[in-house]
């Protein structure tokens, strides 16, 4: 589950029209979410609130043998009007879904649209924002601060859009455990849609880094034609996606160490009618590491991902598989709601509903190695599904790796509480297979 503050930060990016995913560090985001999702540890309560459209707070209280907590504040200079933060109403799918569809690169974006919050959130307040920038206002800025107790750790982050395509970000940690009492990481992101360049510098070891990403094919190609519904069979079968290649280079000026990697990704665009998929290859030429991942949105609410790792120098290999299944049923619904008869009815009704909506591919279509033609009812069912999205009440995520470690995570909503229950297991040590169990409960208003 995305943390509340992370979610708000994401809303800020959406509101200012910044494509966070168009970055080399997010190349693996989909498989990373499916394979390396964080497991909760111990019991943690999170109370959050978007008090005003510009200001939000979050309090955490955790108990892992000892009690700890944190207080976080966030201020955005752009009002986040369209953001639903209430935990009883917040849409779960964007919050919990791992598979990330590619976003529009915004190639046709004009300077005028920069930083207009209403563009994605749908709130018609464009005029006020235009007015704001016309008056020479600054670029949108986000301040975030968080204090952790009792470790006396302080986190701070400032994100500022300088120009429509340039964004600067400074993150700092102050903690007595760290060598110089803290570290600062500064980075600048330059996004032109087709390409994205980032530069970063850290005070820790004097690390300097450069990252870059270049997109081509699909919607990024100059003369791209969106697939038309009325196109022929050949046009429909053509996989429609975007290629991205990139690289990163780091150099620690103090410890004279370097690191680099190259990567490529192919991902289908949302407009593609077939099964959405994402495949990436990353190579670390210095360390001889090759990693390939493949993620697919197999069914409407089921994602699968695999990862293969191989090192050409040490011949070490590693694999991981992960999956995500959405449940329409409220977890423990018959416990929460007293009337069992009602729940059975509802489940049965849901089951009936589901069958016409998502039919298996017809045999004929399979034999011809193509997809079904869209039925005339497609539009109706599509409309239904969006209306039903609120019914998606829980998601089960699971992963397994080469070392026999299993991670299970169950996230969902009960009444107005968002919860995530997770456990880590080790199959190799059956005597103490449960390595960790955790429960996070989040309420926001």
């Amino acid at each position, binding site marked *: 589950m995305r943390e509340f503050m992370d979610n708000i930060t994401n809303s800020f990016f959406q509101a200012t029209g910044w494509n966070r995913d168009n970055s080399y560090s997010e190349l693996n985001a989909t498989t990373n979410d499916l394979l390396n999702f964080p497991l909760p540890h111990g019991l943690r309560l999170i109370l959050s609130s978007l008090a005003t459209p510009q200001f939000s707070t979050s309090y955490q209280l955790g108990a892992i043998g000892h009690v700890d907590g944190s207080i976080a504040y966030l201020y955005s200079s752009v009002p986040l009007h369209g953001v639903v933060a209430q935990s009883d109403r917040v849409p779960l799918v964007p919050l919990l879904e791992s598979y990330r569809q590619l976003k529009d690169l915004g190639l046709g974006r004009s300077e005028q649209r920069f930083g207009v919050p209403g563009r994605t959130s749908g709130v018609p307040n464009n005029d006020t924002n235009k007015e704001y920038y016309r008056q020479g206002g600054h670029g949108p800025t986000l301040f975030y601060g968080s204090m952790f107790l009792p470790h006396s750790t302080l986190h701070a982050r400032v994100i500022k859009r300088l120009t429509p395509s340039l964004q600067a970000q400074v*993150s700092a940690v102050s903690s007595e455990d760290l060598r110089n009492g803290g570290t600062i990481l500064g980075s600048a992101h330059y996004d032109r849609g087709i390409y994205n360049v980032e530069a970063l510098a850290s005070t820790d070891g004097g690390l300097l880094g450069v990252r870059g990403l270049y997109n081509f094919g699909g919607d990024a190609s100059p003369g791209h034609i969106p697939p038309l519904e009325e196109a022929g069979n050949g046009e429909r079968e053509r996989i429609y996606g975007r290629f991205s290649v990139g690289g990163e280079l780091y150099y620690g000026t103090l410890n004279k160490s370097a690191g680099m990697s190259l990567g490529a990704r192919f991902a289908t665009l949302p407009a593609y009618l077939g099964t959405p998929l994402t495949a990436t290859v990353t190579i670390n030429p210095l360390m001889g590491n090759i990693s390939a991942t493949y993620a697919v949105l197999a069914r409407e609410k089921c994602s699968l991902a695999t990862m293969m790792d191989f090192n050409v120098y*040490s011949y070490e290999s590693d694999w991981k598989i992960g999956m995500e299944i959405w449940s329409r049923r409220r977890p423990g619904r018959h416990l929460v709601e007293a009337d069992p008869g009602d729940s059975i009815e509802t489940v049965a009704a849901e089951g009936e509903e589901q069958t016409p909506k998502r039919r298996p591919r017809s045999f004929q279509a399979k034999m011809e190695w193509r997809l079904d033609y869209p039925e005339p009812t497609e539009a109706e069912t599509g409309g239904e599904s969006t209306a039903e999205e609120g019914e998606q009440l829980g998601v089960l995520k699971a992963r397994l790796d080469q070392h026999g470690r299993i991670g299970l995570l169950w996230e969902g909503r009960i009444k107005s509480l968002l919860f995530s229950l997770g456990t880590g297991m080790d199959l190799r040590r059956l005597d103490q297979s449960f390595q960790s169990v955790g429960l996070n409960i989040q309420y926001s208003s």
Partner: protein
Amino acid sequence: MAFNFNWSPLTADEKFYERTRDLLTTALNKSPKPPIIVDDILVTEFNLGSVPPELEILEIGDIAEDRFRGIFKMCYSGDAFLTLKTRVQANPLNTYLCSKPDFTSPQPLAAASGLTIPLQITLSEIKLSAFIILVFSKQKGLTLVFRNDPLESLKVSSTFDSIQFVRDYLQRTIEQKLRDLMMDELPAIIHKLSLQLWCPDQLPKEDEPAKEDGEAEVDPLASPPLDAVDADGHVLDPSEIAALSLDGGPEVQSLFSQKNMLRLAALSNANRTLGLASPTIRDVMFRAWAGAMDKMDGGVSTPYSPPSLTRAQSFQGTSTTYTFSDAGSDGAVGARPPLVSLGSATTGLTLGSGRHHKTGRKKKNRVVNLRKQAVVGETVSEMGESASDSASTMEGPASEPPMPSRMLEEQQELQMPAVAPQGGKVRFRSPDEKAEATRPSYVRSPLFEVPSAPITLAEPVSLTSKQTQASQETARLPVDTKTPMAWEKRGDLESDTSSVILEQAWIMKMAGEIARRVYNEKRRNPGFWEDRDDMPPPAYEPRR
């Protein structure tokens, strides 16, 4: 005097190497490893080589068929080697990220992917030079402690020898690790091994918690303190003491106050700093004051001091001197010099602190006393001799007429043996014995030989009997002397296993601390110690 080692039989035993390898592997993997080491450290090869170490006896404190105690000087520059195997993380970015907070992590995509490389490290050309304190008893096994940092030099060769930076780093890190191993782990390993050899029945007890239990089990009330006082400092009746038991309530607890122990610990810690202020402890007589009072008494002073492990601050103010002394082996130590002499140069390895400036003429040939205690005790002529020996520095309080008030107290104390269970683990001397105690202990007549007396209260008692104006502080002195600081080692304790364990545990702890401190000292002030090595302290002057 030096040893001639028969080195090869030790190495011929194949099982010996196996055991040693296992023990070393366990010891190396005990502490948390840095992120660069991603696997367990395995000891694959271990060979003691063919060149034995040179061992020089500096002092033998106690020797018998079943026990031995001595201090040695060891030099080694042989061909022993040790090979370790582990796997290390070769990507610097990976280890860099391990210790950094996520919030400011640059979050590289694949640049931090790991590359683990098997690493083989061979340690050879080990040069050691150390002072070793060795305590052996058939029941307690072998205790070996380094008095200083034993490692002189060492050659580290590894898979990465061609890379200068890595080689230097490894050399530095391994030397550091090995020092820790030698100072902390090796004594424990040797002790464990020796127990396996000689007394396997004691082995399960050797766990650390078992030792703690042994310490806790000693019932201090089994034989009541001589001059017991309550929390307010009033002297307690023997009958009152008899009524007390360990679970008797807060009154008893205050007799053996944890707070006092903490204060004493704070006091001993205060010696390590340059701070002028030392914590004041109620009801305690400091040695400095005692010296002044002794002077006032006309230099009579130097009450018979029980042989004990004492610590004295040397005049440098930064180094601390430890003194191992034992009455059973060295009669002269029994007659401790006046406390005033502490101001003199007591540095480095010193036995009997400032004694050498008084009996400096004798210091070279006094080291070994091979006589058994029981035999010595029977010879009256010996007694006279040693009495005259000690008469030079002290006047036995026995010859002094005790004050009447003191007599009264002693009358009361006379009842105490009846009160106290005879088999008690901690015993205090009866007044009759006290008179004996003014002589060195080995001349004590067999008539009064009571089983074990690890805590001797002779010194404070004689002190109080001498001083009519004995203040409350002085009167209460015995209470403080029964703290574990006053533990002493005596030959006649063998029958008492629990106190043996306790004693052993304490010696181990103490010796470990000695070693650690000396090592710290050496690191802090290398020049100081180099000088010291060239010129060993007089008490230990090795005869070459």
